[in-house]
């Protein structure tokens, strides 16, 4: 890679490239895993202006409504779009700095596009081979058979793209992005062009991918559900600016989260299966600060998973009602309260041990219960979604 660069770059470029290589070596010793991205880009009706520092491992969701600049940010990171000004460093490698700009085909990344992007003149296998032949030889190659198995596409390999369903095409496209042996995987709403059933078909593969491969991933989405399932870290974009950055659990528990989620407002908790009750077919999960019972989801004892609790599914009480069908009634303390006079509702933070829940209640209830910060409170949780 250095030699081919030397043939194409002017002298300063070669020097920079060598420096970059030595940084990369130093960085791998320090294992400073982070992505620093700073871009300014102006288009006719849109301006992207971000300065981000993201973790170099796990899944970072780039979240926002359509038109917020999510895809543009991802394209700048991929080198598919050239910002007028910018700097980009990925786990110690410089991809952009000053006048230096590494073109897309020399960036060690995998990219999954929003809509089907398989080459129509090649079969599924041909598409995978295209990536395999061009894979970064300096990277540990993900075994071909493993990738094929992970995405469940073994039976589809000899088919041309027009004989694959939308979901199957996207799975092949994800496999192709993995076979290039990427140091960073970029996904631009890979499920957006699919219907509900296809999304359900692919999400488990993505979860599998996340747990089995140690490839940092930037995942663009406007779906709170996908973000809750996959992301460890969150960047919320609004009109080309980052309006919230942080670990997923913290970001979702913020009452001042800058993007309205409406009915989808809710928190995500990391939990572990600690008990299975065969008589009532229930599972007990432990999270930092408490326990939750759910219907038995078939998870093994000790298995780590994440659960999502929506704000609309929590009601509040000042006393512990024993005579209720609700399984999960947790004691906690009231944290911040954010009122929304226009809609007559309030968002209430409930601190349970180290964890935070968010409940949506009416303003009348806030008044009736005389809710105030620090109060002892019982959170009645009507439903819990086990995400993985």
């Amino acid at each position, binding site marked *: 890679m250095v030699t081919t660069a030397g043939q194409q770059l002017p002298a300063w470029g070669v020097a920079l490239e060598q420096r970059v290589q030595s940084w990369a070596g130093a960085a791998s010793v320090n294992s400073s895993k982070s992505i620093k991205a700073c871009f300014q880009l102006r288009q006719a009706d849109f301006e992207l202006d971000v300065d981000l520092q993201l973790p170099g491992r796990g899944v970072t969701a780039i979240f926002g409504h359509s038109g917020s600049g999510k895809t543009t940010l991802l394209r700048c990171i*991929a*080198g*598919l779009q050239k910002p007028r000004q910018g700097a980009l460093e990925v786990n110690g490698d410089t991809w952009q700095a000053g006048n230096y700009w590494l*073109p*897309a*085909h*020399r960036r060690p*990344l*995998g*990219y999954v*596009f929003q809509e089907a*992007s398989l*080459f*129509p*003149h090649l079969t599924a296998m041909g598409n995978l081979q*295209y*990536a395999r032949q*061009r*894979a*970064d030889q300096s990277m540990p190659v993900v075994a071909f058979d493993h990738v094929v198995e992970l995405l469940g596409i073994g039976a589809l390999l000899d088919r*041309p793209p*027009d*004989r*694959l*369903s939308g979901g199957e095409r996207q799975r092949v496209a994800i496999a*192709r*992005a993995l076979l*290039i042996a990427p140091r960073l995987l970029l996904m631009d709403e890979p499920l957006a062009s699919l219907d509900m059933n296809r999304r359900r078909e692919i999400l488990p593969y993505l979860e599998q991918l996340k747990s089995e491969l140690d490839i940092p991933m930037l995942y663009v989405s406007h779906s709170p559900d996908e973000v809750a399932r996959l992301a460890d870290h969150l960047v919320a974009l609004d009109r080309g600016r980052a309006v919230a950055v942080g670990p997923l659990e913290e970001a979702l528990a913020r009452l001042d989260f800058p993007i309205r989620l409406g009915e989808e407002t809710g928190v995500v908790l990391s939990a572990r299966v600690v008990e299975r009750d065969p008589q009532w077919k229930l599972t007990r999960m432990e999270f930092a600060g408490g326990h939750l019972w759910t219907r038995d989801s078939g998870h093994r004892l000790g298995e780590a998973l994440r659960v999502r609790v929506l704000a609309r599914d929590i009601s509040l009480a000042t006393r512990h009602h024993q005579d209720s069908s609700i399984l999960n009634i947790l004691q906690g303390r009231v944290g911040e309260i954010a009122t929304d006079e226009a809609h007559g509702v309030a968002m209430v933070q409930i601190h349970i041990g180290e964890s935070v829940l968010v409940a949506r209640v009416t303003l009348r209830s806030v008044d009736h219960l005389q809710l105030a910060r620090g109060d002892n409170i019982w959170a009645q949780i009507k439903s819990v979604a086990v995400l993985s």
Partner: protein
Amino acid sequence: MGLSGDDITAIWLTLKLASVVTLLLLLLATPLAWWLARSRSWWKGPISAVVALPLVLPPTVLGFYLLLAMGPEGPVGKLTLALGLGTLPFTFWGLVVASMLYSLPFVVQPLQNAMEALGERPLEVAATLRAGPLDRFLTVVLPLTRSGFLTATILGFAHTVGEFGVVLMIGGNIPGATRVISVQLYDHVEALEYGQAHGLAAAMLLFSFLVLMMVYGYHRRAAVARLGGGA
């Protein structure tokens, strides 16, 4: 109604001319069409117009200016003389140059259309799969614009076979060097050899019909395949 020796010579000359012109045109038109398909430069308009000129100009106008340019006093003529190549008018290679200009739009436009229809996405996909510019062109652009290349080849070849005005202006009527089928046919008619004329004319008619049928048949099949593939 059989073909004479002169007719056969004219046919071979025509096929040779059309083959050379088509080959050279594909080499020239591919980068030109690529540039026209992707450039947002101000020059795109004027250059597209120049490429399309042979579609609307009478061949005699084109031939007249080429005759002046390639003659001993013209800029091209001075250059070829300085290079020791002599002058191009009334030679086979003069005919090649003139035919290339005359058939240029028939090769550039199908290529340009196919390349525009290709869009940006397949190239971006290839770039994220670490394919460099040349790699992208060879492994993505060429296979995906194959039908454009086929159409361009067939139209370029057929149009060169069918030209008359430019040949007469720039090539004259030299057996084995510049006397192509259309000129030979003209000679037969001038000499009132209608039987001979019928033979050549029928051969040209059949050839042109078959060529066009191939183009349309191929495009219909390609369209059907696309429709059937929209799963």
